[in-house]
């Protein structure tokens, strides 16, 4: 039974999150014991994948130095990047495998933990069938590890069900771009951003979630470019927006269709481009007729003249970049929203040219690389489709199995949790994923976890989800294994091994390969190092869309990254896609796609009259498994707050800092209010990085986009009321250890 063995409080005392404030040996130690080497690698957090140099001494990361030569960030780092090194040498770090016991978790040997894992997997598969075991992966894994997870699921376990936490990130844009262009990648490198005449940013809190991109946007404005921002909140980049469109949550499609309507009404489309390089324009043009300005304004709450101005700026400019992120994607019509952006880009011919193109901003560290080589439930390496007979035959050949042995596509991340809840999936092996914090409707997730007959976790810290595990295999940090990553730009980069895993912790890929051997499938996993995995990955991706055949560690180091596709060792890589206006679709054309308006899966009502939208703050990352353990980052934004407009606050008698209860159809959450004029009065915003009594995902709902299967995190219905104080439940704020007073030795 995968319930937490002892109370959450007891587990927190032992495994944290505790707050680490100071480097090993204290602040002054480095002046006595300087670093032995600087390792040029990358930040372990978001999809910007900034270059950074880690200071290393005696197999410990003791600090950082900016890496100014790396072209993407040129030394720039956000606060998470600055403090990333403090996750090493952390008191919460798992140093050996753990097995559940009556008293909590006890230390185990690797043999005991791995044999137990293998025997439970075998028992469950023999009793219930191969698909009764599911695999969760994550987008913080290197590309080699992501590839390995896909192969492990299909070849070692033979299960259909493998998916990853990237399902909560880029999949709506990925689905849309595959439909339109046949490829899932940003169409441009970031170096194009300063060259645009107009930047249209929709549903992308760039300042908080992709901080380095801010400099590219400001440089575009320096060059005379105009910035349009569409968001229910004035996010930091809005301070310099030339036009701000404060749309109602969940109405992006109406705004985009209203803009397309104006572009076509005023004859601003690029007829020649449409005729030569696209299909499907007429149907989309027909569908845009109904979206007149009055209707678009009514749906979005944005003045019609502002929508018209945005459309004209986009329609009349020669170079337009349209940037979008989770705000657009985290909706039950996330794919539609992204397709609507693409339709505007295609209608105006803004693609394949300098300073032009639609651009998804991937959010997770290896969000791009982690979704290219088979970690997704429906995909094989090289962005190949698992249902394509030719792809199955090729990959089966590379792997040395019969194509028939390859399972068919399985469930997506949230669907796996639902299958666990209804008893269809009995066992789960999860790495690099904290679904109890990051999936919607956390109470449902908790119930599902309690139904598992076997739950194994590979991780370096004991996440809140791992509290429910039967066995925890102590894995590796980003800096403890070599590997490739791929940034939001599509630039393949090299994560360099800086140190060995501490204690008895092992590299993640080592653990997976060992499990494969113990499952009797060792002949398919002969890898001795990440380099061995990369060799096979290069061949497996060869001829696919995400072709890595020409990419090696040496080339990546020398060339400061390589943009895929890179089909041969002498190929320079492909920074900007579609330069020749040839698309990766079956007919080589870009495809317009008709979009369909659907209401949110959690509509507002008299009882729940407000919109709840969730997102990130700059000092925290995803479910906080890593960043909630770093003292300086917690100090910067210690607790989730409910952002509301003074107009709403006044109506409810709420003052800044008051305790408020936010209630949805799932649950309620009591936190403090932050009263600001930078959010719509009909909207409540809560960041989602926290667990337990402060978990925003207790409030969200499980409606998925029908194609991308992304949850609708950005639109829930809620109400808010003043509360007398925090919940009566025990205070679960994170205790300080290790340099509790700031500025101490």
């Amino acid at each position, binding site marked *: 039974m995968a319930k937490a063995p002892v109370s959450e409080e007891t587990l927190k005392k032992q495994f944290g999150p505790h707050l680490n404030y100071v480097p090993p040996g204290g602040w002054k130690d480095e002046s006595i014991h300087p670093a032995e080497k600087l390792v040029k690698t990358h930040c372990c957090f978001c999809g910007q994948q900034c270059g950074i140099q880690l200071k290393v001494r005696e197999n410990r990361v003791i600090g950082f130095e900016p890496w100014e030569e790396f072209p993407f960030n040129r030394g720039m780092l956000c606060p998470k990047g600055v403090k990333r090194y403090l996750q090493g040498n952390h008191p919460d770090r798992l140093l050996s495998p753990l097995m559940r016991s009556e008293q909590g978790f006890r230390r185990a040997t690797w043999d005991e933990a791995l044999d137990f894992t293998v025997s439970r997997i075998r028992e469950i598969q023999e009793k219930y069938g191969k698909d009764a075991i599911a695999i969760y992966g994550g987008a913080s894994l290197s590309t080699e590890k992501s590839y390995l997870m896909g192969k492990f699921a299909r070849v070692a376990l033979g299960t259909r069900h493998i998916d990853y936490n990237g399902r909560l990130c880029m999949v709506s844009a990925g689905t849309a771009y595959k439909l339109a262009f046949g490829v899932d990648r940003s169409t441009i490198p970031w170096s194009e951003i300063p060259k645009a005449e107009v930047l249209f940013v929709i549903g992308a809190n760039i300042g908080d979630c992709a901080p380095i991109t801010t400099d590219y946007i400001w440089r575009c404005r320096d060059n005379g470019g105009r910035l349009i921002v569409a968001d229910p909140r004035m996010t930091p980049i809005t301070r310099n927006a030339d036009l701000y469109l404060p749309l109602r949550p969940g109405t992006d499609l109406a705004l985009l269709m209203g803009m397309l309507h104006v572009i076509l009404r005023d004859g601003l489309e690029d007829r020649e481009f449409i005729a030569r390089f696209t299909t499907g324009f007429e149907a989309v043009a027909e569908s845009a007729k109904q979206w007149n300005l009055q209707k678009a304004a009514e749906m979005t709450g944005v*003045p019609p003249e502002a929508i018209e101005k945005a459309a004209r700026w986009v329609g009349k400019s020669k170079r337009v970049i349209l940037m979008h992120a989770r705000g657009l994607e985290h909706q039950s019509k996330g794919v539609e929203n992204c397709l609507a952006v693409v339709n505007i880009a295609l209608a105006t011919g803004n693609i394949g040219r300098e300073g032009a193109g639609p651009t998804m901003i991937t959010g997770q560290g290896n969000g791009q690389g982690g979704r290219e080589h088979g970690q997704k439930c429906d995909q094989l390496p090289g962005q190949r489709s698992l249902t394509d007979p030719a792809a199955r035959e090729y990959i089966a050949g590379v792997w040395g199995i019969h194509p028939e042995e390859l399972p068919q596509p399985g469930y997506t991340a949230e669907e796996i949790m639902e299958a666990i809840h209804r008893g269809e999936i009995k066992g789960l092996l999860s790495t690099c994923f904290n679904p109890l914090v990051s999936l919607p409707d956390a109470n449902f997730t908790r119930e599902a976890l309690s139904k598992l007959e076997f739950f194994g976790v590979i991780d370096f810290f004991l996440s809140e989800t791992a509290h429910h595990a039967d066995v925890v295999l102590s894995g590796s940090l980003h800096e403890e294994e070599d590997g490739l990553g791929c940034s939001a730009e599509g630039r393949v980069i090299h994560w360099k091994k800086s140190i060995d895993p501490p204690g008895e912790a092992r590299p993640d890929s080592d653990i997976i390969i060992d499990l494969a051997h113990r499952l009797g499938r060792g002949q398919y996993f002969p890898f001795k190092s990440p380099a061995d995995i990369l060799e096979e990955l290069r061949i497996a991706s060869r001829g696919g869309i995400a072709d890595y055949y020409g990419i090696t560690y040496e080339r990546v180091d020398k060339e400061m990254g390589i943009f895929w596709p890179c089909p041969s060792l002498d190929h320079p890589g492909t920074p900007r896609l579609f330069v020749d206006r040839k698309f990766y679709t079956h007919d080589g054309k870009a495809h317009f796609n008709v979009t369909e308006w659907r209401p949110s899966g959690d509509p507002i009502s008299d009882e729940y009259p407000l919109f709840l939208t969730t997102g990130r703050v700059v000092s925290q990352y995803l479910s906080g498994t890593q960043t909630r353990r770093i003292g300086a980052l917690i100090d910067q934004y210690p607790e989730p707050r409910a952002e509301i407009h003074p107009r709403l606050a006044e109506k409810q008698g709420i003052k800044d800092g008051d305790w408020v209860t936010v209630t949805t159809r799932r649950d309620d959450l009591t936190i403090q209010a932050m009263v600001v004029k930078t959010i719509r009065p009909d909207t409540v915003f809560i960041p989602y990085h926290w667990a337990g009594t402060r978990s925003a995902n207790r409030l969200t709902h499980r409606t998925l986009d029908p194609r991308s299967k992304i949850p609708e995190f950005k639109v829930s219905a809620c109400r808010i009321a003043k509360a007398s104080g925090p919940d009566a439940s025990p205070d679960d704020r994170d205790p300080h250890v290790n340099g509790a007073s700031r500025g101490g030795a």
Partner: protein
Amino acid sequence: MFGYEFYVDPSRCIGCRSCLQACEECETHRGKSMINFDFIERRENISSAAYVCWHCDEPTCAQVCPADAIKKGEDGIVHSSLKPRCIACNNCVLACPFGIPKMMEAEQQMMKCDMCYDRTSVGKRPMCATVCPSQALAYVRPEEIAKRRERPTNVFYFGGQKITTKVYMMAPAEREAITLDVVDYMWKEEP
């Protein structure tokens, strides 16, 4: 670093506080940040500003120091107080028109931004300006800053006191009234 100047542009600041976090990683004052940071008026708008010491040509902090503990180098850098001389009287903290000096209670010493003297003296850029994701803090050549919309100035007036500084402030090339309430941007006829 020869040929490089320090520019502060609050209009570019996104409030991420990377500068604060990075400043305390600096060798000479590890664990203590010397950056000044404010949200201007968070209830009203999202504007934020991070700034370093302006390194005045005639530093008020040094002028008011009764212990002669604050020194300006030939390169124009105004340093933290000299530990053996500083009497922690707070004169500099009170007198600085920019609010820069910080009294370190534990050490009984005034400390302040020295523009990463340990870094710039060995050819590295200051930590804050290197990491700043929006380049609101920038340490670049004048020709680089000339590409920006805003224009640099290093002349400040505080009442009758005119102050010229080593560090430049980026000011808007043209001014216009800015409204910053979401409601002002919403459709008045919203149903």
